Each structure stands twice: as C-alpha cells, then as structure tokens.
C-alpha cells in the first residue's frame, strides 16, 4: 500500500554489549571484537550454557534517576537510555514539550520477554526461593505490576518524551525489534503519526531464561571459550549466545525531516513479516516464508533484488537457522546472493532476543552512513551448506546503498526490512 508518505531514520541510539552509545558500538563492530563472556550476573555453574553478551551498564551514570531505576526493569532502562541518545541525535527537542506536535509523536517498542529479570528476582523473594506456591505479596516491591505488563516500556517512553500519539509494545519474540520499527514506519505511512520513537529492548540474562534455552539446546555450550562462542555460519557453531541491550531509532516523515534540515541516515523502504506456520522453534530448510518477507519488503521499496548491497543476517548461530536464512536469501536474490555481503553482528554482541532486530538496524544505518559493513566474527570454517560471502572476521569498506535486514523467531515469525539511502529509494 503506497500512501506517498516516506519514512526516514533521523536519529539512532544503542545500548549494547561492549559499550553504551553508538560510537562504542560501532567501534566494536568495525574492529570485529566480541563482547561475549562467562556470565557474571549470577553463578552459571549449574547451567549448560554459561556464557552471554552482557552490557556493562550503570543506569545512574547513564542519566536515569533513582526513581526511574527503582520503577523499571533493566530492559526498560536500556530503552530509556537508547531513546535519549536517539532523540538527541535527531536534533529534535522532545523532552521540553515544545517545538513539535506531540499529539502526532508515537512510540513503538519491541520486546520478546519484557521484564523477565525483575519478575524472576521478585518471584524469588515472594516465593521464599520457590518454596511457596501461594507467594507472599508482603515481600514484593511497589512496582510489580509495571513489571508484569511489558507495555510499561511504551508508557515510560511516552511519558519521557510527552508522546501523545499511539504507543505500544510489539512482542513477536525474536522478530520484535524489526516488527516494532516496521510498525512504527506503518504509523507514519498511514498518517497516524509524523514522528515515531521506535526500537526494542530485552534483558533476558537471568536463570529462568538461560535454563529454558538450555533444555532445548538452543544456546552455545562452548563454555571454555566464551569470546569465540558465537559462530554464525561456521561449521563448528553450536547455538546462539544470549545477549541483552536496547536500540532506538527516530523515524520521521521524509518531507518534514527534510524541511527541518534533519540529518537523514537512511530511508525505511519496505517492511514485511510472514509466518512459517510450521513449528514454534523449528525451521524448514527451504526458507520460503523468510524469502516471501524479503520479496514483499523489496517490492514495497520498489527495489530490484539486484540493487541489494548488504544483507544483515539473523545469523543466530544455530545449526538450522543459518542454513534456513542462507536458503531464503538465495531464493529472493537469486544469483545476486553470491555478490552481496552478508554478516551477523550476533557473532560480536550475541542474540538479545527481541532487542537485536533494532540493534541490527542501528548497525545497518551506520553501515550506510559510513560505507562499512561489519564482519561476522569467529567465522573460520564456513559450513559447506552456507556458501555466501559472510564477511569473515574483518569489516569491509564498500558503498552501502541498499540493505536488507532479516529476523527469525520462535513462533515461526520471519521478518525483513529494507533500508536505503534516500536518493536510492526515491
């Protein structure tokens, strides 16, 4: 559906393993360093997977008030700090409440698991370490309801930026970070908003999340070598490494962004999601539905598959995922798939569930901005069934005009989004 309203990215902010802020993040990616390590938040000795990509995050030093920290789970804290950076980066003065029409300022936040960490911490207290099924409310904190409902993330950002337009959390598992931004773009296209603070956040590194991925062997057990544990497309990969973080993009209607002289990182040319309707966690090797999403997103952008320069892979590092999406990209791009660069930043910052889709869109925006494609770290021996150019180990200088970023998640969700230099997408 073409409404004539184009959507551009005018601000970005990120809280990711390896550093808070877009500069630290970009340095990590372009230097090909990894932020995966042995879990420090709790003693992981009893768990199968003992590694994660953790954020060294000091919420107070990052600018949150003690009340904001007390009220909010870590995932919301990430979102607030990433949003602060993105809004400042956009040059919009949103916190003072002046300057823009706040009735047409919207919020779209993605999260796969919401306030899991706080819900688990509080559960330990009210249940007396699991002993009592009839948990005792006397030991719960005042803001437990804010934790139970992940919509609190959207509320916090709405309050923070006086956003009186539509606000929501999009929670489609591991595609949340793409879907929330795609939904935000739709709000602008459909005339429901002019500016959208869009992004995603997750902070899942807690015992219950680690345990639930342990049981299904989805995560890497390369515990003796955490730094090299996230190995997308490598023949020796053995699962994903859990991460955490948040990222926010300021989306604006193109004409008004131009009119105010905003810096434009890129245009959101198209977005589509599809379901494989197959299995909650399993993937068919043919990648048909992810390919359908890619085709639809490119179609909306009115871009031929041969114009794609870079594919930001889901690249989780599970056996089946990396083959699945390699097949999907080949199905959509044909022979051109062998000419593009494709990489997975999860090799460096891990897989932060719903957040990663937005973190990756920040990476893609910076790739277009700087003409540099981040590498796939730890890729030493390519899986013979993964036969594309995954930019092993070293970042690559190259013109990046058109990017496709893809995501795949539990529930069978497959998402694709197209970012392009505005002059290309025009």
């Amino acid at each position, binding site marked *: 559906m073409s409404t004539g309203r184009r959507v551009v990215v005018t601000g970005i902010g990120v809280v990711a393993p390896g550093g808070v802020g877009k500069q630290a993040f970009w340095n990590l990616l372009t230097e090909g360093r990894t932020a995966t390590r042995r879990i420090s938040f709790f003693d992981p000795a009893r768990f199968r997977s003992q590694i994660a990509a953790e954020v060294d995050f000091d919420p107070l030093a990052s600018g949150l008030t003690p009340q904001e920290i007390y009220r909010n789970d870590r995932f919301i804290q990430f979102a607030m700090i990433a949003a602060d950076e993105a809004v400042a980066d956009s040059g919009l003065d949103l916190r003072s409440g002046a300057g823009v029409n706040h009735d047409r300022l919207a919020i779209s936040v993605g999260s796969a698991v919401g306030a899991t960490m706080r819900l688990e911490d509080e559960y330990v207290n009210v249940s007396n370490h699991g002993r009592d099924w009839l948990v005792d*409310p006397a030991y719960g904190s005042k803001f437990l309801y804010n934790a139970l*409902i992940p919509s609190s993330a959207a509320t916090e950002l709405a309050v923070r930026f006086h956003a009186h337009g539509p606000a929501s959390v999009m929670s489609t598992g591991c595609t949340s970070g793409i879907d929330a931004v795609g939904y935000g773009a739709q709000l602008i296209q459909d005339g429901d908003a002019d500016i959208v603070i869009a992004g995603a956040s997750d902070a899942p590194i807690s015992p219950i999340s680690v345990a639930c991925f342990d049981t299904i062997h989805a995560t890497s057990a390369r515990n003796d070598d955490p730094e090299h544990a996230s190995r997308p497309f490598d023949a020796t990969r053995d699962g994903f490494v859990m991460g955490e973080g948040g990222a926010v993009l300021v989306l604006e209607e193109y004409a008004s962004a131009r009119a105010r002289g905003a810096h434009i990182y890129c245009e959101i040319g198209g977005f589509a999601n599809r379901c494989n309707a197959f299995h909650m966690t399993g993937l068919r090797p043919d990648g048909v*539905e992810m390919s359908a999403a890619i085709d639809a997103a490119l179609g909306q952008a009115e871009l031929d598959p041969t114009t794609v320069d870079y594919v930001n892979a889901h690249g989780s590092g599970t056996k089946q995922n990396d083959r699945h999406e390699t097949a999907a990209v080949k199905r959509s791009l044909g022979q051109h798939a062998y000419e593009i660069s494709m990489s997975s930043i999860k090799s460096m910052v891990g897989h932060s569930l719903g957040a990663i889709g937005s973190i990756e869109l920040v990476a893609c925006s910076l790739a277009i901005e700087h003409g540099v494609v981040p590498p796939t770290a730890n890729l030493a021996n390519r899986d013979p069934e993964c036969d594309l150019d995954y930019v092993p180990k070293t970042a690559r200088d190259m013109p990046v005009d058109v990017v496709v970023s893809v995501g795949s998640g539990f529930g069978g969700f497959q998402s694709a989004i197209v970012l392009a230099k505005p002059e290309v997408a025009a």
Partner: protein
Amino acid sequence: MTRAVVTGLGVIAPSGIGADEHWKSILAGELNVRRISAFDPTRYTTTIAGQVDGFEATAHVDPRLVVQTDRWTWMSLAATQMALDDALYNPADHSPYATSVALAAGSGGNDFGQREMTGLYRRGPRAVGAYQSIAWFYAASTGQSSIRHATKGPASVLVTEGAGGLDSLGHARRVVRRGTTAVIAGGTEAPLTPYALTCYGTSGRLTTSADPRAGYKPFDKQANGYAPGEGGAVLLVEDFRTAVERGSPQIYGEIAGYAATHDAFDPNAPAPDATHMARAMSLAIADAGLTADDVDLIVADAAGVAELDALEASALRMVFGDRISAVPVTAPQGFIGRLNAGGSALSVATALLAIREGVAPAVGNLDQPDPAYGLDLVRVPRELDLAVVLVNARGFGGFNSSMVLRKIAPADIDDLAGKGFS
C-alpha cells in the same frame, strides 16, 4: 479504501463459553465475579475475580498442545477456533498468506511461568521444561494460532494492557488494508495465579471487597476498584469484499474508525484531565467519517475506580457535549471483571452482538449511578436501533483507544456490487 468487517466471534469469558452464552448471561444480568477458586486467595489484595467456569482445555485444544502452552493460550486457541467456525472460514481454503494472526497479549503465560520458576528454584535448572521457552512469552498465542491454522500472513502481538484487544483489532484493519484479506485478532488473558495476582495487587486499582456485589462497580457511587478476570474474545476481521464474495454467513459490522493516544503523564497515576482520552474518541469518530451525533451507543472502558470513571465521563462530555446525557452508555464488564487485553476484545464482541440484536445490555453491577457523571447509563437491557457503536479501552500507564463499529446495511452490499461485485 478497503473496508474491514467482522465476520466471526469467539468468546471465552466468565460470562460464558461462546458468544451466545456470553450474550445471554449479560442480558440476564448474571454477576460472574466470585471468590477465586483456583487457589486460596485470602492473602491477596483482591479475593474475587471473573473466572471461566467449565473451561476444559482438552475439549478445545489438542492434548499434546495443552501441555506445551499456558491457560491464556488455551483460551486464545479455543476462541480462535470458535471465531473461524462462526464465520465458516477455513484458512486452508485460501492461500496461507491470505490469513494473519494478530492477537494482543497483556501479561503472558502466568501459570506456566510460575510453575517453571518454582521448578527452577526448588530443584534446579534441569527441572525447567522444554516448553517454557515457547509458553511464557507474549507471542505464544499468536504463534500457536498461526501454526494451528497454517496462516502465513503478517503476524503481530500488540501489548498495551487493557487497550490491547482493541489495538489488535485496529491493527487488523491496517493489515486488511495492506492486502491480507483475513485477520484473526483480539486476545485473551489468564492472570489468576498467585504470582500474577500479587503483581496486579500493586497497581492500586483492584477492589479489596470480598463481596462480589460490593466489588467491581463501574460508574457507581461505590466504585472502589476492579475485579480482575480471565478470558477474552477472538474475532475474524475480513476484507468486506472478499467476505461477501465467499458468502460469509454474517457480517457483524464494520471497523469503521479507530484511534489510539497516550496520556504521557505518569507511568502509574491517572492523567490530570481527560484530554487524550477524548482525543482518541474524536479521532476514531472522525476516522469513521462520522460525527459524535451519529453514535448510538457507547461501550465504556469502565475502570471501576472513581477517579478513572470520572475521567471517562469527562472525556465523553468533551466529545459529545450536552448530548452525552442522551447517549446510552454501557459496560457489561461490571458483570465479568476486567480481563486486561482480553477485555477490550470482548467489548468489541459485545458491541457487535448489540448491533445484531438491537439491544444495549446493562452496565454490570450498578446500583447507585453517580449522578455527577451525567451519563445515560443503561440500567436494564434496552431495545435500540443501533447503527454506530463507540468502544473505549484504556491500558494501565495511560493508553487510550477507541473504535467505531458500524452496522452493515443492505445499501453497503449494493455499493460493493456497484463497484464490480458480482
């Protein structure tokens, strides 16, 4: 522009299993808020809730799937099947990409999550089962429904607390307009577990009354908080043209207008005034191409907290002016409890049933309407010719959503024919 209509209803609610049971129950004025029976609620803020009695998951859901999913998802799957059956719509008869699932979520798989955490802390990581990763998270019901019905169209899971069901239906219209001809939307909720109820208790919005009659009493002088509840509704939203072309057995009504706003005031406290709630209503009415004068009935959000009820009354007065005293306002959820994301989906189902039957059901559990509100609160079911119904929903934190539902008239079908329908 493409028009989106509702062709199927699936209801799992304290008022009944199935849309007909629900409708009969609220028309009869049955109070379905009772003392919580799933566990001893004595130590919790509220001890009463709307519970779905007689809901046997295995009667609706494959037993193998029952063990992999939470009660919230069982209810979503059951209501989805009912909506599809009601509409005589089988996704398998269409391209898999022609159907989407867009179920809202409010708080996820509470019972499943508490059980697995109990296992983790009592017995260690190996006690956590293989299904925790797919049962607790908010996308579980949408993902399972998509798989169960082999739908490959664009899925979504909107989370806006109590406004979620309405927002998912608003989004369903967007998805239809963007070319997916059928969308399974709405939502359910299952928060009646000790831990989730503990969390609810901190919201400051629950009734502490142990007597259901004295509990959730929206717009009553004795309003003192709400009773939570479980269940909700799933609706099939279709492209009007394809619904008619395939011979849908009924069209309950059109999603003619929808809008959402946020108070953006305080994460926990109610807004200082009704500006943004009123704006959601006005935008939804304008989106439908109508004016406030066209609205025949309002299904209120009806928080059952005096301050929030007063805000809704104030918002209605902002939008309708003095005419508000002559527009019937109802809120059958007073009989049922507030079902979080499921509640607003159920309100839409109720509104569509009211349009079909030409009857406005009464406000639930209302004894002494607060005259300060100046509203025409429906006290006993009222026969009315209903063409346009406005539904309001709010979510904790400041979410406001409104939807305008419009009856499909024979002229609408003729209009479709005039544009090439045969």
